[in-house]
């Protein structure tokens, strides 16, 4: 594999002005309208929240190694898993790929100078930070113990914790998403370069477009719902609590109407990233491009009609359960199609085993298991046993962590040279991907077992069933391996910003407009506005393999 083309170093324009070295003042960063700088601001802030969320996860895993706990009270434990969930979902998983990679790449990929509304884009980052501050203040003032789902009437009338502040944080962060979504939709519709028709767009753009639609349609619903919880909590305005004439199950309907599509907000951009990685590193056009593009839209559409599968065992009627289960099985099909298409893309490709490709393979492995275990939960009868247990915890971590984070890391490794103009050591990237993959399985596979055995999620103690301990110990050991897989990139990626080899405009030999400009790109993105004549992924695997053979022969001389 050493013969894999190393970065084609373009020595010349490395010190040309680009979006990073244009100005170094703090003000120039905090008042920037440049989508690339805003992407970097997002990268720093989501990494910070990922770190916070991981700290909470570590505490949870350590605590669960003993059936009676060792470090904290049950109240503290409940606040810990709530902090983990709220931070990871609202402040990491939802913004990670769209706000970092999407912000950086959408204008580049469509050949535009910037997003349609640069100031709205900056405002969205400030809202995100404000929402995050609310969350951190809530934690400092004692934390919140409702779980990230804020189920009523516990959240509205019973919990003695910082529910209101936390909800304000999630509410504000929601508007940050909405702003980003609007920006992407407008940009993709109106700012494509001449010649760049819809079916020449990279699949990452399609996926981001589908995601933006979900964000714009879904987020307002959860925003209103969370406000109603606050209204009930603060003003005793009865909506959800039967004591005040409300209906607690109504909350679940409204909450999942957004929060199920939110799962697709997290995973669809990840799928977009994987399409890019698989195409580039197999040097092939994505197999069934139109199928993959439309399956994103299909997922976005049907994804709005399946929220009731979170509520099979509530007081929802049996008929509702049956309809929601049916639609859930339908939404599984487009995801399956994507996996088959990616696999077929590799067939007759010229596969370069670089770090981003290994992350992409890791994604596929984990997403396969995550997706297939969704069958157990979409199916009514098995869901009755497994819902609310560790089985569901394992399932959604496979989809959201195994899917979204693997894709985010893969994308970050792929576009890192574009963002900072430097290469990181490829072998370290591969090693981290492999460590993460194994650590991840080690952490979450045992949770499938302990869930099937009947351990409910969000349990602090389990001294009444000590046989579960072995699974938790395994899981905690796995989590420490997983941590290594995430800590390593923090070091070698940061190291590479100063010390990496210059990347040149196109280190991977990739197609796509973003690779035709400098790395890092200039503020205006393209020195000459591009005109597009060829479709996406115009790769030639035969020529590529010949070129590799030739350069290997040369090296052998």
């Amino acid at each position, binding site marked *: *594999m050493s013969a894999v083309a190393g970065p084609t170093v373009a020595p010349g324009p490395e010190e040309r002005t680009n979006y990073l070295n244009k100005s170094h003042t703090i003000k120039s960063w905090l008042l920037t309208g440049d989508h690339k700088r805003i992407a970097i601001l997002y990268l720093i802030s989501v990494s910070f929240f990922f770190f916070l969320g991981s700290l909470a996860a570590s505490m949870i895993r350590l605590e669960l190694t003993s059936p009676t706990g060792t470090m904290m009270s*049950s109240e503290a434990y*409940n606040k810990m898993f709530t902090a983990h969930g709220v931070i990871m979902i609202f402040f990491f998983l939802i913004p990670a790929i769209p706000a970092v990679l999407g912000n950086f790449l959408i204008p580049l990929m469509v050949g535009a100078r910037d997003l349609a509304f640069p100031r709205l884009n900056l405002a969205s980052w400030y809202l995100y930070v404000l929402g995050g501050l609310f969350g951190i203040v809530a934690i400092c003032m004692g934390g919140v113990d409702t779980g990230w789902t804020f*189920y009523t009437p*516990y959240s509205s009338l*019973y919990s003695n914790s910082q529910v209101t502040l936390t909800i304000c944080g999630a509410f504000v962060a929601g508007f940050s998403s909405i702003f980003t979504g609007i920006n992407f939709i407008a940009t993709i519709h109106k700012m494509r370069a001449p010649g760049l028709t819809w079916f020449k767009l990279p699949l990452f753009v399609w996926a981001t477009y589908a995601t933006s639609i979900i964000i714009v349609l879904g987020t307002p619903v959860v925003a209103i719902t969370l406000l109603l919880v606050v209204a009930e909590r603060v003003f005793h305005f009865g909506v959800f609590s*039967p004591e005040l004439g409300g209906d*607690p199950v109504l909350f679940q309907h409204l909450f999942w109407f957004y929060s199920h599509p939110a799962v697709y907000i997290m995973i669809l951009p990840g799928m977009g990233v994987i399409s890019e990685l698989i195409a580039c590193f197999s*040097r*092939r056009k994505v*197999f069934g491009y139109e199928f993959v593009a439309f399956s994103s839209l299909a997922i976005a559409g049907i994804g709005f009609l399946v929220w009731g599968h979170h509520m099979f*065992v509530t*007081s929802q009627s*049996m008929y509702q359960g*049956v309809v929601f*289960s049916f639609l859930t*099985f339908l939404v*599984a099909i487009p995801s*399956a*199609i994507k996996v*088959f298409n*990616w*696999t*077929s893309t*590799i*067939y*007759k490709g*010229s596969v*370069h*085993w670089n770090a981003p490709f290994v992350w992409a*393979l890791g994604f*596929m*492995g984990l997403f396969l*298991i995550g997706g297939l275990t969704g*069958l157990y939960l979409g*199916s*009514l*009868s*098995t869901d*009755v*046993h497994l819902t*609310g*247990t560790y089985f569901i915890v394992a399932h959604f971590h496979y989809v959201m962590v195994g899917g979204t984070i693997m894709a985010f890391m893969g994308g970050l490794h792929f576009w890192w040279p574009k963002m900072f103009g430097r290469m990181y050591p490829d072998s370290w990237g591969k090693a981290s991907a492999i460590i993460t993959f194994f650590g991840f399985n080690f952490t979450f596979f045992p949770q499938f*077992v302990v869930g*099937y*055995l009947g351990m*409910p999620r*969000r349990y602090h103690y*389990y001294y*009444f*069933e000590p*046989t579960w301990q*072995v699974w938790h110990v395994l899981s905690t050991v796995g989590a420490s391996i997983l941590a290594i897989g995430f800590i390593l990139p923090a070091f070698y990626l940061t190291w590479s910003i100063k010390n990496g080899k210059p990347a040149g405009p196109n280190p991977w030999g990739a197609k796509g407009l973003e690779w035709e400009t400098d790395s890092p790109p200039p503020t205006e993105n393209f020195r000459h506005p591009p005109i597009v004549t060829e479709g996406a992924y115009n790769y030639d*695997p035969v020529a*590529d*393999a*010949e070129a*590799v*053979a030739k350069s*290997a022969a040369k090296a052998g001389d």
Partner: protein
Amino acid sequence: MNLQIQPEAASERAVEHDQLFFFITALTIFFTVVVGGILLFLAVKYRCTNSKVDRSNAPYHNTRLEVAWSVIPLLLAMLVFFWSTKQFISLTNAPKDATDIFVIGKQWMWHVQHANGIRENNEMHVPVGRPIRLTMISQDVIHAFYIPEFRLQWQVVPGRYTQMWFTPTKPGRYHIFCAMHCGAQHSEMGGYVYVLPQAEFQQWVENGGNRFQPQPKTMAEAGKQIWDKYACGSCHGPKDNERGPSLYALFNSKRKLKNGVEVVADADYIRDSIYNPAARMTAGYENTMSPYTKEQISEEQMLNVIEYIKTLGIAPSAPSGTTPTTPDPLTLRTSNEGDMTR
């Protein structure tokens, strides 16, 4: 160590559920191995350094293939859907002759009421082989009544009744869990279902909800019946645990209280601790025990309970009297009830 990977299947539904569960497991393993295998195989076979493979005429579409890999998963999904839905419909329709039991969830315990008036806390006794229908409601937040060995869970919601039913097939003791996060002690909101053979269940009913001793001969035996009725042992076990201190070898022992005072566990202390547990909390414990009223345990019965607690052991090195080592206003008015009942 015996590594368990499957919970016991103790109801009719549990057996059916597991058949479906293992079918989906087979699908999951099959597709993970096949798709994952093909993926790795292709990625290795078509590595760019392998110049021996044919890369010409790579396809970008294959309608037959694409239809096949859309339709086959869809058919398998529909198979699972119909199979599963059939089970679900039957679990939402209880047989007409099902025995009714009523469940009330509250932070953080389960109350169970039988039609014949027997009440239980954190325990539910049922006969084997009979369909049982639970009608459930919550007194506060949303809970979920979950019995893994029956593969059965349903939310218990405030403001409206929910129902579920099961037919236990194996006598034994099975966990009850709360599976919906309900606050601080969510993980400890649990108990046990006791599935009894028909005859034993009949006797349990005749004994007014006591399984063990039909006719108490002594006060201690009568006390044990009350102890069992209110499931005192589910918190106060042979050893101190997270839920409550052990009451073994309690009588006449010195107890350290939360406020730092040390008292002797005499009859009065025990009586007070049952009628008003908050007054003298044992050090290291929070006040999680609900007080018992005189309607639940009459003064008469209280004496029996104290007698029973004595049979759990009397501290050997106790002082002969009941004088506390540190004067405590509550123990100063000690009478000799404990001695009187001896």
